[in-house]
């Protein structure tokens, strides 16, 4: 607390009734910070002059845990980072270890992975939309999105027994074969949710309050995004058409036809539009994938004890929040020598300061929501 240099907290103490600058704490226990994020705001009246994020309240030492567990044992831990997109985390980790071992999951496993991961992307965006709209004052979308997200969680539950921290994939493929009626459930969900997304849009896209609260709020340019390492929908809303599913395809994404929606202004409203469009693209991907799940095994031939050769690998996927990467160094033993997670939320949160300077306090809430962070992943 004594060296917050960029906030100038060491400025001489001012007498009471100071009319100039005010430093207040937002969080860590604040409903609109989506977890335990503490933001120190430096204010002039209600205008934000600067912010500093204090994070780490949820730090569990995931990387250290990884060094002390076998590759198989660590698999469920990754679900607990971005817990609203656990399937994506698992996909990234399993693919990274597979790459390190130089094995490839069978085609059937890849398709099942794509179906579940894209369902998870929709669930993650739905949760984001509900909470983000709630922060800004629109309460109804929360009920709509949670109602519809339930259908996705039901499919997860039927597939692997868990709803949130699914641990759906294994190194080398999938542990579970699809249950009888899986395809039908997914197809029913597709026809169920497509009109629901229109419903969300009917509530918000032309809603005057929504427009006032999101248009030209938290603007960030594409160049700034790249300099700050921001990825995911935030980068795309700033006009950079970059998605790892297209740029460096993994799993079976190269076989599907879909588009990368982008925005133009890089404001909160564009990020909303991009995520809505992404949900529709995910539906397209799921439809192609679920109709084309090939027959065959769901596990590649991997030894029971995972012992990758000496070496290192970086593998990243397009998680709902941006580039999620795993950097693994193997020393040839059953445990990773070093396991680094490159979390999208952590890196994207760094852009908060750039996005909120000059805005009002209420806009900080909107911007935290629009970056779409999950503190479990920020702090790991």
């Amino acid at each position, binding site marked *: 607390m004594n060296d917050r240099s960029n906030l100038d907290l060491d400025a001489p103490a001012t007498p009471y009734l100071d009319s100039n600058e005010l430093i207040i704490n937002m969080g860590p226990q604040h409903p609109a910070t989506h977890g335990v994020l503490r933001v120190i705001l430096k204010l002039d009246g209600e205008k934000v002059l600067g912010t500093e994020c204090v994070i780490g309240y949820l730090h569990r030492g995931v*990387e*250290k845990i990884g060094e002390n567990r076998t590759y198989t044992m660590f698999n469920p831990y990754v679900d607990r980072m971005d817990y609203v997109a656990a399937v994506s985390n698992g996909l990234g980790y399993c693919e990274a270890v597979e790459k390190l071992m130089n094995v490839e999951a069978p085609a059937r496993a890849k398709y099942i992975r794509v179906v579940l991961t894209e369902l998870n992307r929709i669930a993650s965006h739905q949760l984001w939309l509900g909470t983000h709209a709630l922060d800004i004052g629109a309460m109804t979308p929360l009920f709509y999105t949670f109602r519809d997200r339930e259908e996705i969680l039901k499919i997860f539950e039927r597939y692997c027994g868990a709803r949130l921290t699914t641990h759906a994939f294994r190194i080398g493929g999938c542990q579970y074969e699809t249950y009888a009626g899986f395809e039908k459930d997914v197809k029913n969900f597709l026809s169920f949710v497509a009109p629901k997304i229109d419903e969300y849009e009917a509530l918000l896209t032309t809603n005057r309050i929504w427009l006032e609260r999101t248009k030209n709020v938290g603007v960030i340019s594409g160049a700034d995004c*790249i300099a700050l*390492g921001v990825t995911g929908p935030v980068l795309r809303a700033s006009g950079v058409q970059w998605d790892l599913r297209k740029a460096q395809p993994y799993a079976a994404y190269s076989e599907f036809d879909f588009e990368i929606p982008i925005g133009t202004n890089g404001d909160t409203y564009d990020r909303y539009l991009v995520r809505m469009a992404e949900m529709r693209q995910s539906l397209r991907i799921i439809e192609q994938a679920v109709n084309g799940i090939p027959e065959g095994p769901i596990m590649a031939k991997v030894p029971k004890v995972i012992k990758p050769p*000496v*070496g290192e690998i*970086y593998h990243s996927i397009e998680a709902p929040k941006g580039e999620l*990467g795993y950097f693994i160094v193997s020393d040839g033993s059953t445990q990773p020598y070093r396991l680094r997670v490159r979390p999208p939320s952590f890196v994207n949160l*760094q852009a908060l300061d750039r996005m909120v300077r000059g805005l009002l306090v209420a806009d900080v809430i909107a911007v935290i929501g629009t970056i779409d962070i999950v503190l479990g992943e920020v702090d790991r």
Partner: protein
Amino acid sequence: MADEVKSPAPPPPEGEKKPAVEERAAAAASAPAKPTAPAKPAGPVPVPWTSPLVEKYRSQYGSGLDAQTYLGQNYLTVERSLIPNILRLLRDEEQFDYCVDITAVHYPNREKQFDMIWNLYSFARNERVRVKTQIADGASIPSSVSIWPTANWLEREVYDMFGIQFDGHPDLKRILLPDGWKGHPLRKDYGILQQDQEWVQINLGIESGQ
């Protein structure tokens, strides 16, 4: 499972890690026709990475730079003194405009204990490259915040977890752990259990349950 118990993690690899791999590769290459009977086939090995980029910097910096490819991923191993130049050139001349990640690996038995790793990506080329260097414990490394602003938090995390100092960082302090934390957890010599016992004894006044 029983096998896992029997084979605890071997000591961390040291300098000899790479030569061993290369030897295996050389052995495999010299006798391709004679199938020996190893339990498992030799894994992929690092091969030299040749590209215009590498040629250019090799002619400029000579032996201070080594380029290899492992499993299709390129990395440059450079001397510590070349780091600021190489990183800046990679961004300015080679369009590696996105710094994906900065991290470190600790090898406690090595003279230069730390591997620093910069993971870069170029939007224009759709290519990744990793830049690696070795530094000793207590040595510092120039900060790359002026090259990529995203390095700010990433370097703070490396400092927090490994205790590596970054020269010229605008605000180098812990990021995930509290300010008063002792030690740097991702070092291999960091005692997890001691830390836990101490904390429990001081704060709860009981013996640790671990």
